[in-house]
C-alpha cells in the first residue's frame, strides 16, 4: 500500500484516527468530571475532515475494484460529513450534561465510517461490512439515554428491525450471486437480469434498503424509534443515515440493476406513491414533534424515490441536490427541537406556541425549516422539490408527478400549521428560551445560510448534475 492508496482512503483513515484518539482519551481521562474541551476538539476534527475531503482529489480503485473512489463518491462523503458536523455541533449542549459524553461521538463517528465504507464499496462484501457498521452502532445510539425507558425500547426495536433488514438484504445478495456468479458491481453491470429469480433478488434487496430508508411499507419502526431516541440521534437517523442509504442505493440501482429498470420501475413507483401519501396522511394527525418529523421524513423519502424513477443523469443530480438541501432543512428543525427539549423537556407541537416571541432567532429558524421542507420559495426546498418533479416529468411519469404534487398541498397544511403556531402567542405565560451555546447557534446559522442560499446558486446544481450518472 503506497501513499496514493492512503490518499484514496484518506477520509476513512482520518475518521479511524479520530476513533483511536477518542479511545486513548477515554483511557487517560479522569472518569469523575465532564470534559467540555474534547467536544470542541471533535468538532474541529470533523471540520478538518470536511476541508480535507474537498481539498485532495485523488481517485481510484483499491483491492481489485472492491473499494472505489471517484469525484461523485467523495462528494457524497462530504455531504455526510457536513451533516455530521452540524449534528456534532448541535449535540454539544446535550452531551455536556453527562459523563460518558465522548461515547456518543465515538459511536457517531464509527457509524459515519461505516457509511463511508458502504458508499465507496464496489463489491457486495465490502458493502455489507459497511452496511452493518453503519447499522449496529445506531441501535446503541438510539438507546443512549439509559435512564429512559422509551429510549431502551426504541433501541430494542431498532436492533430487531435492522437485524431483520440485514437478513433480508443478505438473502437478496445471495440470490444475486447465484444469478450472476460475481459480487463485483462493475462485472454485474454487464449482466442482463431477467426472470422471476431476478425479481425476487431485487425485491429482497429493495426491502432491505426500504427498512433503512423508512419507506412504506417498511416504515413501521420509524415513528416509535424516532420518538424514543434522543433528539440528536433522531436527527442523525433521519438525515445522515437516510442519505447514506440513498447514495449506495442509487449506485446499486443504476449500476447493478441498470438493465432491470423496466421491472424495478413498478416497485419504485408503488412505494413512492404509498410513502408520500401515507407519510403525509399520518403526519397530519401527529401531536408529538418527533413523531411528526418521522412521518414527514417518510414522505420526503418518497419524494427522493420519485426523483430516482426516471433513471437518468438528471434524476441522480436532482436526488443529490435534494439531499444536500434536505440536510440543512431537516437539521435546522431538529436543532431547534433539540434546544427546546434540552430546556423544557417537552416535545409536543403545542410547546412551540409563541416560539417567535420567546426567542425570535429560534422561531425564524424553525419557520424557514418548515417552509423549506414544504417546498415553498424562496427557500431551497422549493428548488429541491422542483427538480425532483422535473426529473420524473422528464421521462413522462405524469400520474406519479400529479399525485406527488397533490401531496405537496397536503403537506403544506401541516407545515404551515406549525408556522402559525410559532407566531401565535400562547394564552398562558411562557418562559423565554435561550438559544443555547454558541456552537449550537453557529450550526443553526449554517442551516439558515444553506436554506436561503442554495437555490440561488445555480452552479451548485450544475456541479451535482455533472458528477451524476444514469443507467
Amino acid at each position: 500500500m503506497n501513499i496514493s492508496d492512503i490518499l484514496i482512503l484518506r477520509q476513512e483513515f482520518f475518521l479511524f484516527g479520530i476513533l483511536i484518539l477518542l479511545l486513548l482519551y477515554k483511557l487517560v481521562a479522569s472518569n469523575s468530571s465532564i470534559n467540555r474541551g474534547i467536544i470542541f476538539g471533535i468538532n474541529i476534527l470533523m471540520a478538518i475532515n470536511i476541508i480535507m475531503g474537498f481539498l485532495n482529489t485523488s481517485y481510484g480503485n483499491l483491492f481489485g475494484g472492491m473499494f472505489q473512489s471517484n469525484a461523485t463518491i467523495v462528494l457524497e462523503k462530504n455531504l455526510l460529513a457536513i451533516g455530521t458536523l452540524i449534528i456534532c455541533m448541535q449535540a454539544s449542549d446535550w452531551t455536556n450534561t453527562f459523563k460518558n459524553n465522548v461515547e456518543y461521538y465515538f459511536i457517531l463517528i464509527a457509524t459515519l465510517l461505516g457509511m463511508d465504507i458502504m458508499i465507496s464499496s464496489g463489491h457486495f462484501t465490502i458493502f455489507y461490512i459497511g452496511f452493518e457498521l453503519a447499522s449496529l452502532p445506531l441501535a446503541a445510539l438510539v438507546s443512549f439515554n439509559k435512564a429512559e425507558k422509551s429510549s431502551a425500547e426504541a433501541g430494542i426495536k431498532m436492533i430487531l428491525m435492522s437485524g431483520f433488514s440485514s437478513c433480508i438484504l443478505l438473502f437478496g445478495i445471495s440470490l444475486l450471486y447465484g444469478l450472476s456468479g460475481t459480487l463485483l458491481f462493475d462485472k454485474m453491470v454487464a449482466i442482463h437480469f431477467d426472470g422471476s429469480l431476478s425479481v425476487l433478488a431485487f425485491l429482497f434487496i429493495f426491502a432491505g434498503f426500504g427498512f433503512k430508508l423508512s419507506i412504506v411499507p417498511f416504515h413501521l419502526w420509524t415513528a416509535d424509534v424516532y420518538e424514543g431516541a434522543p433528539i440528536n440521534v433522531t436527527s442523525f437517523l433521519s438525515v445522515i443515515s437516510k442519505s447514506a442509504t440513498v447514495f449506495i442505493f442509487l449506485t446499486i440501482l443504476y449500476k447493478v440493476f441498470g438493465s432491470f429498470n423496466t421491472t424495478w420501475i413498478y416497485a419504485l413507483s408503488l412505494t413512492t406513491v404509498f410513502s408520500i401519501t401515507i407519510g403525509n396522511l399520518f403526519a397530519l394527525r401527529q401531536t408529538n414533534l418527533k413523531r411528526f418529523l418521522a412521518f414527514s421524513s417518510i414522505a420526503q423519502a418518497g419524494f427522493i424515490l420519485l426523483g430516482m424513477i426516471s433513471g437518468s443523469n438528471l434524476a441522480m443530480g436532482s436526488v443529490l441536490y435534494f439531499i444536500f438541501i434536505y440536510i440543512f432543512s431537516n437539521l435546522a428543525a431538529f436543532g431547534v427541537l433539540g434546544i427546546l427539549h434540552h430546556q423544557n423537556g417537552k416535545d409536543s407541537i403545542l410547546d412551540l406556541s409563541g416560539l417567535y416571541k420567546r426567542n425570535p432567532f429560534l422561531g425564524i429558524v424553525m419557520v424557514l425549516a418548515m417552509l423549506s421542507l414544504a417546498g415553498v420559495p424562496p427557500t431551497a426546498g422549493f428548488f429541491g422539490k422542483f427538480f425532483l418533479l422535473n426529473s420524473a416529468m422528464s421521462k413522462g411519469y405524469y400520474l406519479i408527478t400529479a399525485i406527488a404534487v397533490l401531496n405537496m398541498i397536503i403537506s403544506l397544511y401541516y407545515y404551515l400549521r406549525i408556522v402559525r403556531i410559532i407566531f401565535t402567542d400562547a394564552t398562558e405565560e411562557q418562559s423565554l428560551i435561550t438559544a443555547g451555546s454558541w456552537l449550537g447557534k453557529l450550526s443553526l446559522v449554517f442551516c439558515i445560510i444553506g436554506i436561503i442560499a442554495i437555490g440561488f446558486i445555480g452552479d451548485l446544481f450544475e456541479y451535482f448534475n455533472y458528477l451524476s450518472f444514469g443507467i
Partner: protein
Amino acid sequence: MLNLIFLFPGLTLLLLCFFKRQEVVRWISLLGSILQLLFVLSLLSFYLQDVKLINASTTLYESSLPWFKTLNLNYHTGVDGIGLAMILLTAIISFTGVLASWNISLKPREFYFNLFLLSTGAYGFFIAQDLFTLFFFLEIAIIPKFLLISIWGSGKHIASANKLVLMLMAGSAMILVSMLGIYYNGSHCFDISVIAKNGLPVKVQQILFPLLFTGFGIFTAMFPFHTWVPDGHSSAPTAASMFLSGISMKMGAYGCLRVAMALMPQAAINQAWIFLTLALIGVLYAAFATVRQTDLKYINAYSSISHTSLVLIGILAMNATALNGAVMQMFSHGIMTALFFALIGMIYGRTHTRIVSEMSGLQKVLPFIGTAFIIAGLCSLGLPGLSGFPSEAKIFFGSYAADGHFIHLITIFSILSIVITAVYILRMSGSVIFGPLSNEFSPLKDGSWYEKYLIVILVGTIIFVGIYPTWISDLIQYGVNNIMLQIKDHSVAVVPHGILNI
C-alpha cells in the same frame, strides 16, 4: 435597470429586520413605499419615451441571467404595457396599504415585512418573462397572505387562512404540472417568448390549457373555485384585503392572459366556451350573491368576484378592444376595491361593526369617508367619469365585436350584472351613508391625516383614469398588440366550436 425594482422593497425588508418599534417601522415602510412608487412612476415615463422611439410594441428592458444552465432555466425579466400597468397598481396599493395599517399594534414589524414580501412577489411576477421566474414569484406571494390572515385576522381567520392557502396552492400545483408539461412537450425551455414563437402541438395544448387556465383561474376567483375569496377577505386585516383583491386576484388574471392564452391560443379558441360560461356564471352568481350579503366585507368580496369574472370574459373574447378593457378593468378594479376595503376598515375601526343594517347616516359624522365611499360605489357600478366606466364599456364593446354568436350571448347576459351591481351598491350606500344618524355613532371623528392621504390618492386615481382613460389604455395597448400578435399567428376567427354555433 428593471431589476432595480427590487431595490427599495429589498432595502425596506432589510431595514425592517433591525427595528421593532411601531413608530419607527411604519415610517420606514412608508418611506420605502413612497420611494418605490416614485421609482415605478419614473419607470413608466421612461417606458413611454422609449416605446415611442422604438415605435414597436415589444418587451422592453429585458435582461436574462442564467440560473440553472443544464435545464435552460433563466432569470429573465422584461416589461411591456400590461406588466407596467400592473406594476403601477401594485406600487399604489402597497403605498396605500401601509397607510391603511398605520395603527397596527400587534407585531407591526412582522406585519409590514409580510406586506412588502407580498408586493415583492407581485413585482417579480409582473416583470417575469420566464415561466420558472414567474412561478417562483407567484409562490413567494402566497405564504405572506397566509400569515397576514392567520396572525392578524379576525373571526374564523385560521380556517379562512387554511382554505385560502390550500386553494391557491392547488392552483399553483396545476400551474407547476402544466409548466413542466409545456417544457417537455415544447422547446425544452421556460422562456415565454421562445415558447410562443415555437408553438406547442395542438394535442398538448388541449390538455394543458384547461389545467393552466384553471390554475390561474383559482387565483382570479373563477366560478367554482371562488370560495376562498369571501372567507379570506372577511377575516383578513384591512391591508391584506386590499392586497388580496387588489393585487393577488390580478396576478391570476395576468397569468391567464400572459401564459395560458398567449402560449396556447389554439386550445384557447377551442375551449373558450367552457371558461366563458364559467366566467358568466361567476359574474351573475356573485352579483346576485352580493345582494343577499349583510356584511360590508362580504359585499365587497362577492362584488370583486363578479368584477374579476368580467376581466376573464374580456380576456377570453380574444379581441384587442376587449383585452385592453380587461387589463384596464384589472387596474381600475384593483384601485376601486382597495379603496373600498380601506374605507370598510376605517368604518369598522370607528363603529366596530360591519353589518349594514346596524349603521346609518354616517355621512353626517364622517363626511370625508362617506363621500369617498359613495365615489367608490359609483365607480363600481360604472358611472361615466370614473374609472369603472371606460374599462367595463371596453370589455362589453370588444367582446360584442368578437365573432360568433355565443360570445354575443355571453356579453348580453354579462351586461345584466351592471343592473344588479346598481341594486346592491345603491342599497348599501343608501343605508350606511345616508339616513338618520343613531346616537351611538354621533361622537365619531372623520378621517385622520393618513386616512385622508390614502383616500385622496385612490380617489384621485379613479377620477383621473375616469376622465382621461386614454393614457392608460394607450399604455396597455402596447402590451395588447404584443399579445394579439402571438394569438393572431395561430388563429383565424374566434368561433366556439361545436356549441351554440347558431
